[in-house]
């Protein structure tokens, strides 16, 4: 046990991070303390700076350090396509894959049958305004293949139908590297229904 209240406080805060428990937080803090100059001070400085400047992009909901996130600020990405995702983590996953060159709209959650999360909380009216204001050509609904995810996708499709924008959703089926024997019934059924001619 560290006797110092400051160090104990730091360990408690670190233990709240995802993937860290009390023991791993203690190990991480110990490592930081041993490398105060090379790691701890720059990390603290970077965290303090981002904590002061981080904000939600007022167009798409992505997190950045300016009013407009780099994606919304990039004119090359205004190709008339917007990809709707549940969370910033999904946006980062798509960006990591480098397969989409349009812009995004982060909902910040999903319509939930039990938690009374409604369309207003998810910024769906804001998305409808974007469709008309930005003259969007296609809205891609990249939402989870779960009950809440697809309920939200259907709701958005209904809400945007009057705008006439083209709506599409991600395909469902066998993942790359997936073995049929290990797939659940729902995924197998979806893959079979979405089969394509070769």
């Amino acid at each position, binding site marked *: 046990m560290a006797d110092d209240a400051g160090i104990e406080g730091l360990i408690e805060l670190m233990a709240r991070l*995802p993937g860290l428990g009390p023991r791993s937080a203690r190990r991480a803090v110990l490592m930081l303390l041993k490398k105060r100059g090379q790691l701890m001070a720059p990390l603290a400085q970077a965290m303090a700076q981002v904590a002061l400047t981080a904000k939600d992009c007022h167009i798409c909901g992505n997190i950045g350090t300016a009013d407009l996130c780099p994606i919304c600020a990039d004119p090359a990405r205004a190709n008339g396509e917007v990809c709707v995702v549940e969370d910033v983590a999904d946006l980062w996953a798509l960006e990591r894959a480098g397969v989409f060159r349009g812009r995004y709209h982060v909902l910040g959650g999903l319509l939930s*049958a*039990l938690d009374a999360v409604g369309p207003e909380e998810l910024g769906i009216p804001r998305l409808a305004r974007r469709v008309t204001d930005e003259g969007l050509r296609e809205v891609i609904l990249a939402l989870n*293949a779960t009950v809440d995810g697809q*309920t939200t996708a259907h*709701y958005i*499709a209904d809400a945007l139908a009057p705008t006439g924008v083209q709506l599409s959703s991600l395909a469902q089926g066998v993942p790359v590297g997936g073995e049929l024997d290990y797939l*659940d*019934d729902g*995924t197998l059924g979806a893959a079979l229904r979405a089969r394509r001619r070769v």
Partner: protein
Amino acid sequence: MEWREEGLLIAMRPHGETAAIIEVFTRGHGRHAGVVRGGASRRMAAHLQPGTQVMADWHARLGEHIGTFTIEPLKSRAHVLGDRLALAGLSAVCALLHTTLPERAPCPALWLATMPLMDALGETDWASAYLRWELRLLEELGYGLDLSSCAVTGATEGLAFVSPRTGRAVTQAGAGDWAEKLFPLPEGMAGQGPLAPQAVVQGLAITGHFLTRELVETHHGRPLPEARGRLLDLLARAG
């Protein structure tokens, strides 16, 4: 304490980083919650969707503990994900079971009515089956409607209204000047056959009134789940 029973998964929420707390609706144990270790994993996510039929093994040291579930999927209902109306029906059933039923109270009759409805979702005329399921749910909650005879005249023919106070059917003659204050009884609602889409919507307005009253009295005015409102909205537009 332990039991093993077939159930319908009606709710799931993450518990910590790796586990999930689920609610299962079973014939012998009613609405029952428990922890699923590893329930937040990608491998389990597909099986822990509302509407999935599962074989549930529940264990706890004491009966009053929340306990842990071991889940084996029996039937996926992923095929309804692409059908907005059927998906709204599935969400409404799960949300109503979660919101209205007391925990751990067996409801065998409601269980028997629920499973055929879940299997029928997306097929022809499932909306009529859904309306009759809500009537069954009201019976289970002690607010069953009596649509067999007129509350005023005793007649069994020509039933035209439902009293919002007693839930009993009334004929045109029996209603008299009170007719405006009564719910119109949709054609066919008292029988077993298929109903017209508009009649289903009218019927759901009646069951919604009594479900709301039940929630006011026993659940401190909790509103009806939004999932039911979305289903009603879609049915009204489809009709």
